[in-house]
């Protein structure tokens, strides 16, 4: 009797153990599938964002002076020199022209494309930022008004003619754009992390000038370095980029592109000069082309490196080229650009 009971108990127990093992195996199988699927979905979301950024970059190269608001899956996009990263997934570029803050948060991106012309179009500057980032422009001159006007209305921007009383409105980053004088560090922003509060001070006009980069250091400002800008588009680009290294890297890439485009214009002008001279008009045109070639070559040499001296050289040559082009138009010659 006891032996039979024992045997039955063993059978029942064995059945339960068997069901338990089989059940555990099934649960394990499905859990591993769910985890894998979750990882795939996350990777897919990240790659979707990267693809969107890639599409934005392509779009920027084909459209000029446009502003767009793009909805993306909620993510943190990190931008550094020639690199875009989204939570571990990155894409490296050879010469990326993308002016953006080092970190963009949220599910929306604001993009702006501006033409970089000196005076002929060399490339488009792509400026990207997050609507969650706060911009504070302080200045009373025309340049301050011009900067405010050039930045899209969709941005969280504030414009003050005099030093304002700045309040903390819980933005993950705050960028101050100071035109005339540097202001004291706002007390309300003291609790924010050092990397999240930055400022630029602009000394110059619409054509060219210097930009001082500042960053929060405890309860004061720390000078990070001084760079240059040439034309309003590169000035606006400096407003979007929150660190000097990234700005200078992008400007160097912009100058590399300018150098390549200038090479084309040098060759084109040489070919225009090869034309047989029959009339007085053609002799005048050749004079103009010879003159222009000198300035094209100046830009060609100066665009090899982005620095203050070369910015001045390019700016001066650009003015002369613009005047030459106008003369070419007046004399019914083929235009230089």
């Amino acid at each position: 009797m006891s032996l039979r009971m024992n045997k039955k108990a063993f059978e029942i127990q064995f059945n339960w153990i068997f069901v338990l093992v089989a059940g555990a195996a099934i649960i394990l199988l499905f859990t591993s599938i769910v985890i894998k699927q979750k990882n795939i979905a996350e990777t897919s979301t990240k790659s979707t964002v990267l693809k969107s950024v890639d599409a934005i970059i392509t779009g920027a190269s084909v459209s000029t002076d446009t502003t767009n608001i793009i909805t993306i899956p909620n993510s943190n996009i990190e931008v550094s020199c020639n690199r875009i990263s989204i939570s571990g997934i990155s894409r490296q570029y050879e010469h990326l022209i993308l002016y953006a803050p080092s970190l963009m948060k949220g599910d929306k991106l604001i993009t702006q494309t501006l033409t970089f012309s000196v005076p002929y179009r060399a490339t488009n500057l792509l400026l990207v930022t997050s609507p969650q980032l706060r911009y504070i422009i302080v200045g009373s001159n025309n340049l301050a008004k011009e900067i405010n006007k050039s930045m899209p209305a969709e941005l969280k921007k504030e414009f003050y003619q005099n030093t304002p009383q700045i309040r903390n409105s819980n933005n993950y980053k705050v960028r101050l754009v100071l035109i005339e004088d540097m202001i004291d560090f706002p007390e309300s922003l003291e609790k924010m992390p050092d990397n999240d509060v930055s400022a630029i001070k602009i000394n110059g006009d619409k054509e060219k000038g210097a930009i001082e980069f500042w960053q929060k250091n405890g309860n004061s400002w720390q000078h990070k370095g001084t760079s240059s800008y040439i034309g309003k588009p590169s000035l606006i680009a400096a407003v979007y980029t929150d660190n000097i290294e990234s700005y200078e890297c992008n400007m160097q890439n912009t100058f590399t592109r300018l150098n390549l485009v200038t090479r084309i214009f040098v060759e084109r002008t040489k070919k225009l000069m090869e034309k047989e001279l029959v009339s007085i008009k053609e002799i005048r045109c050749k004079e103009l082309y010879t003159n222009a070639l000198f300035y094209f070559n100046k830009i060609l040499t100066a665009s090899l490196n982005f620095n203050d001296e070369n910015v001045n050289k390019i700016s001066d040559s650009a003015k002369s080229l613009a005047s030459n082009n106008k003369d070419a138009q007046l004399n019914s010659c083929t235009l230089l650009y």
Partner: protein
Amino acid sequence: MKKQKKSQIQIGETIAVLFVFFILVTIGFIFYAKVIKGNIELEKDELSQLRSVGVAQRVMFMPEVQCSEDNVIIDNCIDILKLEAAKSLISEKELYYYDLLEFSDIKILQIYPEEAEWEIYSRKIDNFRNKFLTNVPISLYNPATRKHSFGVLAIETLSR
């Protein structure tokens, strides 16, 4: 003996049920994997086509070849004098232009009044899986003679 046989049959039954269950799960997975694979293939094709259109757009708007009049861009127009200079520049700086033009073969064909051909970029892969050809009708402008001609921009993109 009889009881033992009955329990053996019971365990056998459970194993058989589990076996059938796992077979069904496996069949389900195979079906799911096939559907997913099909979707991935479709997405890959779509991406290749998008890339092809992207390359075509980038070529059309490159300041290296585009026509302009007092810095005003003329759409669907290629400057022949720029084109000849761009040809040698792009082949010299092939790595730089790879970022923009990827694996593709870009030709400009003049159709009327005379026939001519310029190959401005060619970077091919041997074992490609997809090949897309985009033809864009364009106007070719010669600033030296100030004459326009008719042509086609042929962009062939390759992808693995």
